[in-house]
Every structure is written in structure tokens, then in C-alpha cells.
């Protein structure tokens, strides 16, 4: 780490095609809302599961947009994907079904999968017909992910997996899960070695998936058991033993996306509309301040996207975005309480109140999922040479 600590966030190059795409997506979503295609929800990328809606997006060519055309993609830039996801988030569209596959599993398969996998799976993911869950956490492994106990034993022609994965979002509707498992004995001196990622079809014999109800009342995450589950040799993603390296770079890239600051923007939007007619100076200041922070966080998140496009690896910057952004998503709800007390779960037809209540019930998860904020701060501190 150099002596001067300066974080720069270059401007992304937004050309006309990006702008056009944004407008197209926006118009589509507004029409969908008008036609009753969906009801806006808060934290939609985690709470809104609607495979039919995901298929609609796939049909429009809005999933897997950065992938090669031969695999069902559009060969567009990361920025094109960025604006699509932004528009989906702020509209509160039910996008959870495909979110992980589009953001993470698809690119992982593209980078590490076999040709066969790419040919058969990527076009289906891009069509919104194939969903993938993340099998990282376990009952005994959360932040300390390297301690996972799920084991994969080498057998003839493949591997046999045994273990339990916990909290996998959306697994109940997914056809596949990427499972992080131990493939060689744990060595306390090299605890990050001997881990491997597998792509496991969830209809394999020996797999059972059970939904877990969360505090907001939704069954969105799951516990999955793997009992001597056989997968063929080519289910290995990347190299045997290289799992840790793969998931850390995978996680680093998903940290700074717009879903780390916009999960509750739909609420702020509706609140603003409701307040306009009677807005006092004080309320304008409170709500204007939140718009300022949204804008600044967005500049930062786009800046990380631009750094990634330049081929850099801005791990610290990405962690800063997620730490600040997720806390801000919670702050929005806490601050809106001043004008809209959140007391009842039912809303008697008032959309804003319903969104506020639901946000409050979901907000503890914002600073946990995808690596807790404490873990992120550890990464930042290491980047600054303290660890």
C-alpha cells in the first residue's frame, strides 16, 4: 500500500446506447406496473420471487447481457448491465429468481465451466429459465467461510458430496446450486486450500431443500442437505482446490453493485411523492439529504464499475461501497419514520406504509448478506496496511 491513501472514482463512459437501454427498461417497467404485471416491493432483489417475470426479462434480452452471443448473451458492456439492474431495483421489480444467476453464477460458469456447461446452461440462464443458488454458508460456517465442513470425496467418474448448506436464497426455485466443499483434509496452517466449487443439480438423488421463514414472514432462504450426492467429474467449477480464490474474487465483484445502495430506494421515491404537496423546510432537508447521499454513493459505485472496466481490481473501494451503501439503505427507513411512523404491519391500502413496514422487517439482513459489514471493514483495514 502506498503512503498516500486516495480513493478516486473515475467517471464511467455512458454512451447513448446505455441511455437508450435505460429508457427502454424504464418504459417497460412502468407499463408492467400499470398493467398489474407486478406490485413494487422493497428489497426486491431478495424478496421478490417471480420466475414468470424473470422469463419476461429474459425474452427481452436483459439477462446475461455481457456474455458472448454464442452463449445467449448480447456482448454488451458491464455498464449496460448496471443500468438494467438499477432500473429493476428502483422500480421494486420481483427479480430475485434470476438475480444470483445473472450476477454471479453465469459469470462464474463462463470463467470456469466446461464448454458443455456454457452451451447448455448459459442460454437458459439468459432466457430466465434456469436459476442458481449459492451454497456457501453452513450451520457452523458464516463469516469464517473457510471452515466449511461439506465434503466432496473422489469416486469413480466424479465426486460424492455430503454436508449441509444454510441460508441459500431462493434455492427452492433453483435448478442448480454452486456448492463450496472441502476436497482435501483441512490444514490449519493453510486453511484456504483444499476447497472446491461444484455445480450441483438440485434434483440429484440425495439432495433435499427446505425453506426457512425469515422475520419478515417470507420463505426465501433455505437449508439444503446433501447425502452422498454424486456429481460427475465436469461438475467441478475451475480447478480442484482453487475454490477459495474463485469465491473471493466473485464476492469482491458483487460487492459494489447498485443493489448495495438501492434496496430501499423505492420507498424513498414513494415517500417523496407523497410529501411533495406539503413539504416543509425541515422535511425537505431530511429527504434532500438522503437524495444527496444516494447520488454520492451512486457516483462511488459507478466509479468502481469504471475501475473494473479498466481492468483494475478495486477490492477496497468495492468494500467501502457496500459498507456505506448497506448502512444507508437502513438509514433511509429509520429517518423516514420521523414523518411516517412505522407501527402496523397491515397498511389498509396505503402502499407507502406497507413498503416502510416491510423494509423495517427486512433491514437487519442488509448488513449481513454477502459478507457482514464487520468482515468488509476487515478487508478495508487490510487494504490500508493495518492487518
Amino acid at each position, binding site marked *: 500500500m502506498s503512503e498516500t491513501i*486516495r480513493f478516486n472514482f473515475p467517471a464511467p463512459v455512458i454512451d447513448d446506447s446505455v441511455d437508450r437501454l435505460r429508457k427502454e427498461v424504464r418504459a417497460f417497467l412502468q407499463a408492467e406496473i400499470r398493467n398489474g404485471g407486478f406490485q413494487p416491493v422493497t428489497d426486491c432483489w431478495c424478496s421478490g420471487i417471480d420466475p414468470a417475470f424473470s422469463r419476461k426479462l429474459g425474452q427481452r434480452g436483459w439477462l446475461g447481457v455481457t456474455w458472448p452471443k454464442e452463449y445467449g448473451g448480447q456482448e454488451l458492456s458491464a455498464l449496460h448491465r448496471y443500468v438494467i439492474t438499477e432500473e429493476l431495483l428502483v422500480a421494486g421489480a420481483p427479480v430475485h429468481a434470476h438475480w444470483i444467476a445473472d450476477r454471479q453464477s453465469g459469470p462464474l460458469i463462463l470463467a470456469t465451466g466446461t464448454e458443455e456447461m456454457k452451451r447448455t446452461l448459459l442460454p437458459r440462464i439468459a432466457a430466465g429459465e434456469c436459476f442458481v443458488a449459492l451454497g456457501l454458508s453452513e450451520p457452523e460456517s458464516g463469516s469464517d467461510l473457510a471452515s466449511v465442513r461439506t465434503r466432496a470425496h473422489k469416486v469413480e467418474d466424479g465426486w460424492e458430496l455430503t454436508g449441509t448448506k444454510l441460508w441459500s436464497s431462493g434455492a427452492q426455485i433453483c435448478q442448480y446450486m454452486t456448492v463450496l466443499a472441502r476436497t482435501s483434509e483441512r490444514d490449519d496452517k493453510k486453511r484456504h486450500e483444499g476447497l472446491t466449487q461444484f455445480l450441483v443439480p438440485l434434483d440429484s438423488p440425495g439432495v433435499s431443500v427446505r425453506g426457512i421463514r425469515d422475520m419478515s414472514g417470507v420463505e426465501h432462504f433455505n437449508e439444503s442437505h446433501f447425502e452422498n450426492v454424486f456429481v460427475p467429474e465436469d461438475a467441478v467449477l475451475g480447478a480442484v482446490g482453487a475454490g477459495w480464490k474463485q469465491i473471493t474474487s466473485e464476492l469482491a465483484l458483487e460487492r459494489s453493485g447498485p443493489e448495495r445502495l438501492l434496496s430501499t430506494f423505492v420507498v424513498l421515491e414513494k415517500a417523496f411523492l407523497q410529501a411533495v404537496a406539503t413539504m416543509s*423546510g425541515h422535511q425537505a432537508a431530511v429527504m434532500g439529504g438522503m*437524495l*444527496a447521499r444516494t447520488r454520492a454513493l451512486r457516483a462511488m459505485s459507478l466509479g468502481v464499475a469504471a475501475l473494473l472496466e479498466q481492468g483494475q481490481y478495486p477490492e477496497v473501494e468495492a468494500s467501502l461501497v457496500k459498507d456505506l451503501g448497506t448502512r444507508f439503505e437502513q438509514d433511509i427507513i429509520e429517518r423516514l419514520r420521523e414523518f411516517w411512523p412505522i407501527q402496523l404491519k397491515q397498511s389498509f391500502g396505503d402502499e407507502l406504509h406497507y413498503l416502510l413496514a416491510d423494509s423495517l422487517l427486512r433491514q437487519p439482513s442488509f448488513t449481513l448478506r454477502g459478507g457482514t459489514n464487520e468482515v468488509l471493514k476487515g478487508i478495508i483495514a487490510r487494504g490500508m496496511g493495518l492487518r
Partner: protein
Amino acid sequence: MEQTDQLILDTAQRLFADHCGADVVNAAESGVAPVRLLTALLEAGLPLAWVPENAGGVGGSLALGFNLIRQSAGFALAAPLAETLVANRVLAESGLEVAESWTVLVFDGGVLPMLAGGKISGLVESAPMHAGVTRLVVPVSDQGAIRIATFAPDDVEIDYRESLAGESRAQVQLSESVPLALSSAVDGMSEHGLMQFCALVRACQIAGAMEKMNELTVAYVKERQQFGRALGKFQAIQHKVADIAGESALANAAVEQAARELSEHSRPFSGSADTLLSIATAKVVASEAAGTVSRLAHQCHGAMGFSYEYPLQQYSRRIWSWREEYGSEFYWSERIGLAVADELKHSAPGQNDGRVWDIVSR
């Protein structure tokens, strides 16, 4: 960045490092003028960096000026460079001759009206000032337009004050004062525009100072040992440092975006609605961060940071003043809120879905 710009920044960096150490900053506050620094800055022509070549300046871009100001704040520069850059730029915009030496824009958010015969009366409550200024640059309003008047310090009553950091500020009283020079109406300049411009200058300064505070803190917690290890090995300290980095980075992102936008605007002093959101965002985020960063940086430094000799305080005191000047986070937040509400009120009924995002993401 253009080549001239980089050259100027490199020169400045060298000058600041050579002539503006922490001891110079402290001494300047006790009244020992940093003569070598002031001379070196003038000799290098830095006060003219923001003046177009055809007006006798160096011709640096708008973006350069904001970078230079941010950089200077990272040294707690004991010279009115930012003030002079702004004042000279305003002079150049107005077609008046730029100042040879130090100068300030006598402006705290409101402009004085011009009286008949070109005389000017009124009170500017809190203007930046400096003992060495040779020219005062005063924006005045005349039939809805802005004109620029200049005065010698002796032509007006100056009641000297100090900012929290001991930087010179003053109450300036004009009593039917006759300007040395008076421009005609300046095209594309408004009171709001001056306010926006000055707010972005302060936001840049805050961002620059916070970078330095981040640096000082990281270096200190790596060095200082307690309980047999460096403070930076304690997780509680690591998390504070991460928070400092986050707030400082966020301010950088906002300031860079605003500077980019203003630089691309054809009329940077017009107070355009196009630049309001970005500049207000920069000042809000930087001013908010100023409180958080100074609290955390001081906590990490223990009593050492509270001592006068250790440089941290020169930065925390500066950002505490700068966050209030040209509109605090409260002021600019309200401006954003009202501006957005206003836009929504004026769009057709039923056309408001997604409008807030439309505005924020523009």
C-alpha cells in the same frame, strides 16, 4: 488531464511540500507570516492558475483549479491560494484586470445592491480575508444582473475575525464606497452561481483535508503501540479507520463528480439547475463527513491528536469551519429537497412515477 494541468499540480505539490510543513502552519497561526511559502506561490504564478491566458493567466482548466484547491487543503496551506484563485477567476469572467498579488472574493452568500452613481453600501458578515490582500473583489447586484467591483483594503472598513482554524475572516462594511474598478453586467453570473461555485470550493477543501487526516491516522495507528502491539492491530481501531476511509472516499466521489459537471458547463457561475444537484450533493456529503471523520480520527489519536503540536488539529479545525461556509449540509439538503419537490409539482399529474430516481440518476 491536460499536460499543463498536470505540470501545475506537480509544481504545486513540490512547493507545498517544501514550504508548508506542519511547523509553518502552526507558526502562521501565531502571526509568523510564512514568507517563503507566500513568495514561492506568487513566483510560480499559482494564483493565476485559473485565469485564462488571454486575461494574463496560466489558463488551467476549471477541473485543474478544483484539484489544486483540494491538494492545497491536504497541506492546511497557510496562504489564501483558494481565495485568490476564486477571486481572480471572477475578475477574469467580469473582464476586469486580475490582481497581481493576493486577493479575496468578499462574498458570504448574498450580494450587495449597487447605489446610484456606482457607489456601494452594505455589510458582508463573514468574508474570507487575509492580511496580505491588495484587492477586494465584491460582487454587486444592479437591476438583476451581477457586476464586479474592486476595492483597495483601505477603501472599506475591515473588522478582522478568525475561523476556528485561525484562518482570516472579516466583517466588511462598505459605506457609499467608490470602487477602483467596476465591470459591466457579467454575462452568465448570478448570486446562486457564486454560491454554488464557492460551496464546491469548500467541499474540495474538506475532501482534501480528510484525505490527509486519513493518512495521518493510518500512519499513527501503525506506529503507536499499546498492550504490546500496534493500535492498528485492534479491531475496534481498524473499524474506525475503515469508517474514516469510507466517508472520505464518498466525499471524493461526490466532489469529483461535481467538479466534472461544473467544468463541462458553459457557464460555471450561472447557478444552473443542472449543476445544483451535483454541487449540493458534494457539499452535503463533505460537510457530513467532516463531523464523522474528525471525531473518529481524534479518537484514534488519543491525547496526541488533541495537542497543538501534532498536525491533526489543523485539519479538523479547518473542516469544522469549511463545513459551515457557503451552506452547511443542512442548507444544501434543504435546497435539494425543495428543488426536487418543485420539479415534481410541475410535472403533469400521473407522470410522477419514478421521477425522483429520474432526477437523482441524471
